[in-house]
C-alpha cells in the first residue's frame, strides 16, 4: 500500500512545519537530523524548514539552536534541512543570539510566544521580527505544539491568539510571517483577515477538517498563501501531504501549496 498517491516525479515537496530534537513531554520517532531525513525520505519530502524542539521548552533557547546546527552540519550533507533559529524576544541578549544564529547559518526565525511567555504583538517581539525582516528572514509564529487537551498536567499552554499575530503582521507589512499550527477554524479566519497582506502565509499542518478541507480553502482564498506543513515528528507526515496531494484541486494549486509558495519564500 502506497504511503501516499501523489506522483512524486511531478511535484517536489517543501515542508514548512518540521522540528528536530527531544520533546520534554513525550517521545517521538525522530529526535535528530538522521532520523528526520529518514522520515522525509519515506514521505517523499525533498526539503524542510526546521527548528529545534529542545529550544521550545528551554528557558534560554539559544544553546539548543547551536546544538541543532552542529547536528545539521554533521549529518545533512545535501542541505535538505533549512534551519530556522528559535529564540525568545524577551530573554536577555537575544539580539546577540540572533547575530550568532545568522553567522552559524540559520536562515529564518521561529517564535513560540506561549511557550516563552510573551505576546507576539508586544514591542520586544516586534523588534525581533523587524531585525529578521531586515536580513530578509521569514518569521514563523507557532500557535501550538500539541492539542491543548493532551498537554502535561503541570504545563497546560494556551494557544497563541490569532489576533495578536494579525496585529503584528499589520504593524510590519514588509515582514514575511507564517502562521504555524493554526487549527481548522483559526486558519481560514487568519487567511480571511490578512487578505491584503501578501507576505503573510499559513502552513496547514493543523488543518484537519472539515470534509474537503483543502477544496474549501482553495475556493475561498486561492492557493498563493498556503504552505505544506506536516508537523513532523509529532504527526504522521502523510496526513499533511495526503489532504493536499489527493485533494480535488488543480495541479497548479497543489504545486503552489506543496512547493511553489515555499520556494518563493525561501528564494529558491
Amino acid at each position, binding site marked *: 500500500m502506497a504511503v*501516499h498517491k501523489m506522483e512524486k516525479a511531478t511535484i517536489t515537496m517543501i515542508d514548512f512545519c518540521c522540528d528536530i530534537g527531544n520533546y520534554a513531554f513525550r517521545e517521538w520517532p525522530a529526535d535528530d537530523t538522521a532520523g528526520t531525513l529518514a522520515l522525509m525520505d519515506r514521505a517523499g519530502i525533498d526539503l524542510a524548514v526546521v527548528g529545534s524542539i529542545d529550544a521550545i521548552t528551554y528557558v534560554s533557547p539559544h544553546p539548543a539552536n547551536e546544538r541543532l546546527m552542529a547536528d545539521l552540519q554533521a549529518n545533512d550533507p545535501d542541505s535538505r534541512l533549512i534551519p530556522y533559529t528559535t529564540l525568545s524576544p524577551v530573554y536577555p541578549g537575544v539580539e546577540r543570539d540572533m547575530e550568532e544564529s545568522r553567522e552559524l547559518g540559520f536562515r529564518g526565525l521561529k517564535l513560540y510566544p506561549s511557550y516563552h511567555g510573551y505576546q507576539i504583538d508586544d514591542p520586544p517581539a516586534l523588534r525581533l521580527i523587524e531585525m529578521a525582516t531586515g536580513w530578509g528572514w521569514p518569521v514563523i509564529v507557532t500557535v501550538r505544539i500539541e492539542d491543548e487537551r493532551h498537554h502535561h498536567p503541570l504545563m497546560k499552554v494556551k494557544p497563541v491568539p490569532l489576533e495578536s499575530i494579525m496585529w503584528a503582521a499589520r504593524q510590519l507589512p514588509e515582514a514575511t510571517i507564517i502562521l504555524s499550527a493554526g487549527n481548522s477554524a483559526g486558519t481560514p479566519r487568519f487567511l480571511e483577515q490578512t487578505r491584503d497582506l501578501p507576505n503573510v502565509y499559513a502552513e496547514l499542518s493543523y488543518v484537519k477538517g472539515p470534509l474537503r478541507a483543502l477544496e474549501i480553502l482553495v475556493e475561498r482564498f486561492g492557493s498563493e498563501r498556503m504552505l505544506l506543513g506536516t508537523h513532523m515528528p509529532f504527526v504522521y507526515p*502523510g*496526513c499533511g501531504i495526503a*489532504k493536499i496531494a489527493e485533494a480535488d484541486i488543480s495541479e497548479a494549486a497543489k504545486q503552489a501549496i506543496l512547493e511553489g509558495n515555499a520556494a518563493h519564500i525561501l528564494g529558491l
Partner: protein
Amino acid sequence: MLIDFHAHVQDDDEGTRADEMVREARRIGIDYIGISEPVTHSRDSLEIVQRQNDLVFRTYERHPDFFIPLVYTHANLGQAALDEVHKGFDRGARGIKMEVATVITDKCVEPIIEEAIARDVALLQHSWHKVTGNYPFETDGVHCAEIGRRYPELKLVMAHISGDNRWGIRAIRDVPSVYTDCSGSIADYGHIEYCVEQLGADRLLWGTDARGADFLYTLAKVRDSHLSDEAKAKVLGLNAAKLLKVV
C-alpha cells in the same frame, strides 16, 4: 475494503451534505460509512434524540447501499431510551451510539448494554481523556475498560482511542473485549503502531469523525503507518465489516 466506522453526515433537508459525502468518499475509495448523529452538549430531551435519529435514518434511506446507521440514544431517558433503540433497529440500525449524556458506567446505561449484547451489535461510546477537564458526563477510556470487564460479551468500541491515545490504549489493553476506533483529528506519529502492538490488529477500527474531520487526513494516519499490509487491511475495513455485519 475501506470502511469508515465513525462519521456524522449532519445532512440538510435536501440531502446535499449526504450526497457530497458519498461523492467524496467514493472518489477516495471508501466502500461504506457507519453514521450516527449524536448531540454533543450533554443532556437533551427525547425530542432532540428522535430528531437526530430521524436525520440519520433519512440519510441512510437516501444512500442505503453506502451508509450503515447506528442508532443514537441517551440512556438517562429510561424506557424511552430503550424504545428509541428498538425503533432504530426497526429502521435498519446495525449498532448503537452514545455520546456525552451519561458516563457509560452509570447504572442507567445497563439496559442499553444488555440490549446491545442481546442483539449482538456494537456499542460505540464517545470517549476522551482531557487534561483540560472532561464534560460532566463524558466517558473516559478507564470507564470503557470498567464496562469491558463487567460485560466481556459486549462489543464495546471506545471511540477516538479516548483522545489522548496513549492513555486510551493503556486503559483498555488488558480488556480484550473492548475495541477502539482511531477517528478524529489526532494523528500522533506512532500511535497506530502502538495501538496495534498493545491491543492486536483485530481491535482497532479506522474512522474519520467526518464531517468535522477530513477523509484524507484521517486515512493517511493508518495508510502512512508502519503496520503490515495484513494489519492495515483489518484496521481499514475488515474489523468493521465483522462488527457491522457487512457481507
